[in-house]
């Protein structure tokens, strides 16, 4: 990697780390959401670093634009409590068990990544967007159509779930 790319990688890693810590540890859900958005923007930067500007754009559009707004609606619609939903401390046992459940895959996967590195090229491959479009409408046509069906079912299911009849109550 070039020096500038290394600096950018470091900055994006710091942004991702800070956002993840805020998203996981903050007692207020709105602050946790801000942390999540920070992480999402950092991951978009990582996509730019990997020479995939289309993925970075989609990350901002789908995650930051749509999913974060959805989660914000979830926060608003559930009457979050005054002092933060996570204000009361968890018992120590739960904390230790959670840490163990996290460290096990971290140690295993980290060990595998470090000791068995895949053959990696130094400069990422550049794929023109035209080729992506041809992939979507050619070899991967079925998943492309299925994902639209899934989105349609999810949207109508969500509307159906929260529908309130006017005469009820």
């Amino acid at each position, binding site marked *: 990697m070039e020096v500038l790319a290394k600096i950018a990688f470091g900055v994006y*890693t710091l942004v991702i780390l800070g956002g993840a810590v805020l998203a996981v540890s903050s007692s207020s859900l709105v602050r946790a959401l801000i942390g999540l958005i920070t992480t999402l923007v950092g991951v978009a930067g990582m996509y730019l670093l*990997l020479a995939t500007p289309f993925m970075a754009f989609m990350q901002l559009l789908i995650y930051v634009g749509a999913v974060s707004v959805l989660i914000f609606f979830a926060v608003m619609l559930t009457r979050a409590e005054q002092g933060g939903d996570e204000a009361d401390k968890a018992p120590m046992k739960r904390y230790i068990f959670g840490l163990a459940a996290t460290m096990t895959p971290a140690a295993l996967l980290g060990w595998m990544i470090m000791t068995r590195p895949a053959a990696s*090229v*130094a400069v990422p491959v550049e794929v023109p967007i035209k080729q992506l479009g041809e992939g979507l409408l050619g070899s991967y046509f079925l998943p492309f159509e299925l994902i639209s069906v899934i989105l349609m079912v999810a949207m109508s299911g969500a509307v159906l779930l929260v529908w309130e009849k006017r005469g009820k109550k």
Partner: protein
Amino acid sequence: MSALTLFQLVALILLCAGLFGLTQRRSLVGMLISVELMLNGAGLSMVAAAQLTDFSAVMGQLGTLFVMGLAAAEATLVLAMIVVVARRFKSAKSSDITTLKE
């Protein structure tokens, strides 16, 4: 350390942060936020692996795009469920809705 290893380590950190949040959070919305963190780690790992090895780059990018679409669908459905649960139980905490234990 190769570039791919560095990207994979960042993705692993995201996965573990999400996993830890999933075990610690006491509200359903917080758990949803943690799941989004984990999905982002998966996407980053997939794109890095496709871009930095000989594997088909188009397939890696489109796979991540599908992960994003599924994440959007999942977030929609979970939002609807949280709203229904919050209406019925008057709370969105996971400890308040475990009625099977009683």
